[in-house]
């Protein structure tokens, strides 16, 4: 039965088991390591700002809150931590996780390491809807006596992301089969269209609206509040638990759609679910924090380099890594020009774009779409 029996193959069989066990151990260590790093950064970020609070004090306040000792939670520090910093850090974690995991999902779906929600126009669609809400919302309501409700912007952005994803999906689907290549190309076109329409809106907007638009397109966690968290968390948290269910399917899709079908996977359902999850994640993120670029491309890449491309590890590690990165970027955004703060999109793009270029240069020999 053996094709090419070679001396030493029996020892190779046992070393194969050791190899597999080593990979598993490496994955578990990475998950524990990144989780610890994320929690540490979160505590640091919670203490950072106009009012400096030592990490130990932050930890003390959090422990007191978690263990229900509310009588210890008096004074300014507790107020700042619980009402201002904590929702912001939690929002950074949720959005970072959502963006990074959407990037990993899209790259798996498109079988392309350069795919990203920003690339296929999902973010642009969400951004366009947000811009339309900012610029046109007041004009449409002028004279009716109504004012734009607080939730209009996030809901608009969310719908924009969903509509552009759906459009993308419909364009690329013929007779029940989705062509990933068509989808990628259509996404670039839709993204350009959304970008030009957003530009048009900027052109007709007044000064105040233009400033809102600019900040929106740069991304910011500045408006974080428990109210926003309550909107985002119910969308992003279930997603973080649903996505790992796709890991086996995405692994098989690496071989190609036909091969994944031969392996017994419901290919069309996996693709549909992945696309829906990406739309939800990106819509929710853009809705609450504007357009934050490059998290979805940088994080999965780093993890592939460090641990490998197996989606069973890549997806959870991307979520953890994305959360860590965005918390870190938020610390930087608040420190660099303190006491003011930079839009976080500037920080992630300033780090992400050079990194992206480095990736391209590194693999200059074989970038094929």
């Amino acid at each position, binding site marked *: *039965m*053996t*094709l*090419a029996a*070679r001396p030493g*193959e029996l020892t*190779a*069989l046992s070393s*194969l*088991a050791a*190899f*597999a066990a080593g990979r598993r151990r490496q994955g578990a260590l990475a998950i524990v390591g990144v989780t610890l790093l994320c929690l540490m950064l979160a505590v640091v970020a919670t203490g950072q700002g106009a009012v400096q609070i030592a990490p130990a004090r932050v930890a003390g306040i959090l422990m007191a809150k978690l263990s229900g000792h509310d009588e210890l939670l008096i004074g300014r520090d507790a107020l700042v931590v619980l009402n201002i910093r904590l929702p912001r850090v939690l929002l950074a974690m949720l959005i970072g996780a959502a963006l990074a995991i959407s990037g990993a999902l899209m790259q798996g779906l498109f*079988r*392309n*390491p350069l795919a990203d929600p920003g690339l296929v126009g999902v973010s642009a669609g969400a951004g366009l809807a947000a811009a339309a809400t900012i610029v046109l919302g007041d004009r449409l309501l002028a004279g009716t006596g109504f004012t734009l409700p607080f939730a209009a912007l996030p809901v608009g952005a969310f719908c924009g992301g969903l509509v552009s994803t759906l459009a993308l999906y419909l364009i690329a689907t013929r007779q029940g089969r989705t062509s990933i290549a068509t989808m990628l190309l259509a996404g670039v076109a839709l993204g350009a269209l959304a970008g030009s329409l957003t530009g048009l809106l900027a052109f007709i907007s007044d000064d105040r609206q233009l400033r809102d638009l600019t900040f929106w397109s740069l991304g910011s966690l500045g408006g974080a509040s428990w109210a926003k968290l309550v909107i985002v968390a119910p969308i992003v948290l279930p997603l973080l638990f649903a996505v790992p269910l796709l890991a*086996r399917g995405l*692994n*098989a899709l*690496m*071989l*190609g759609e*036909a*091969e994944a*079908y*031969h*392996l*017994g*996977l*419901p290919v069309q359902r996996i693709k549909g679910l992945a696309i829906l999850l990406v739309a939800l994640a990106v819509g929710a993120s853009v809705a609450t924090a504007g357009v934050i670029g490059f998290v979805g491309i940088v994080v999965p890449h780093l993890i*592939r380099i460090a641990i*490998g*491309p*197996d989606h069973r590890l890549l997806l959870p590690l991307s979520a953890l890594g994305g959360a860590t990165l965005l918390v870190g970027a938020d610390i930087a955004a608040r420190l660099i020009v303190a006491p003011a703060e930079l839009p976080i999109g500037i920080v992630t793009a300033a780090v992400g774009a050079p990194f992206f270029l480095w990736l391209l240069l590194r693999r200059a020999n074989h970038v094929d779409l």
Partner: protein
Amino acid sequence: MSTSDEHGSALVACEGVGFAIGRRKLVDQATLELHPGRTTILVGPNGAGKSTLLKLLTGELQPSAGRISFDGEALAAVPGWRLASRRAVMAQQTRLAFPFTVYEVARLGVDGVGRRLPRGQREALIGQALSAAGVLDLAARSYQTLSGGEQQRVQFARALCQLEAGRGAGPSQALFLDEPIASLDLCHQLALLDMARSLASRGVAVLIVLHDLNLAVTYADELVIMDQGRIVARGAPAATLDDALLRQVFKVDLSLSRAPAPGLPFLLPQQHRAQSAA
């Protein structure tokens, strides 16, 4: 539908199957049966429709005419996961976008079909398949860095994994190989074909698309010749091949020798055939 002949009931059968893109018929009126324990080899010139017919039989493409059945059921009605435990497919060439290791690629064969097996058993299956395909020593290497021939052997190992993991899911299984030896050296060509035959002798219905007529004649229980979308001949190799047909189908002057002619290089690998027949 006739799903039985002198070899017992067919595992995969198609009758009058056609596949067209617009007006161009890639496969026309194809009737074929694959039986457990038999190796069927599909030959024909480029563009004859061999790969398309294989894709129709695996369910990857839906026929525009005719019927295809798997174990007596309409192929389209068999759920994908059940089909996956009964048949494995190896495509002409499989490239990966990400640096999966050889071990991980082979593991894909058992991840779905063998997900209910205990982990130790799954790992043993992977090890055996890698070893059988002669790529065990490459297990930790990145698939992307392998040569085309090595990649083909890894894909063969993956297909073996899938068959092994699905064993017991039904009375018999099928294996589809689309030009599996296109990038292999002579030694590994013969080794892979031997392996396919030994699977057939274990009761697997094997269909191979092949270009080398000498090897096709050597390894086939049934030879199927396609030309311009149609099956033009089908039967035992010795009875199916004749000069006129080959000249017509392949558009080359050739003469068929029953024995190596003196002075002419005629490669007929006999050693492996003798071994697996014994």
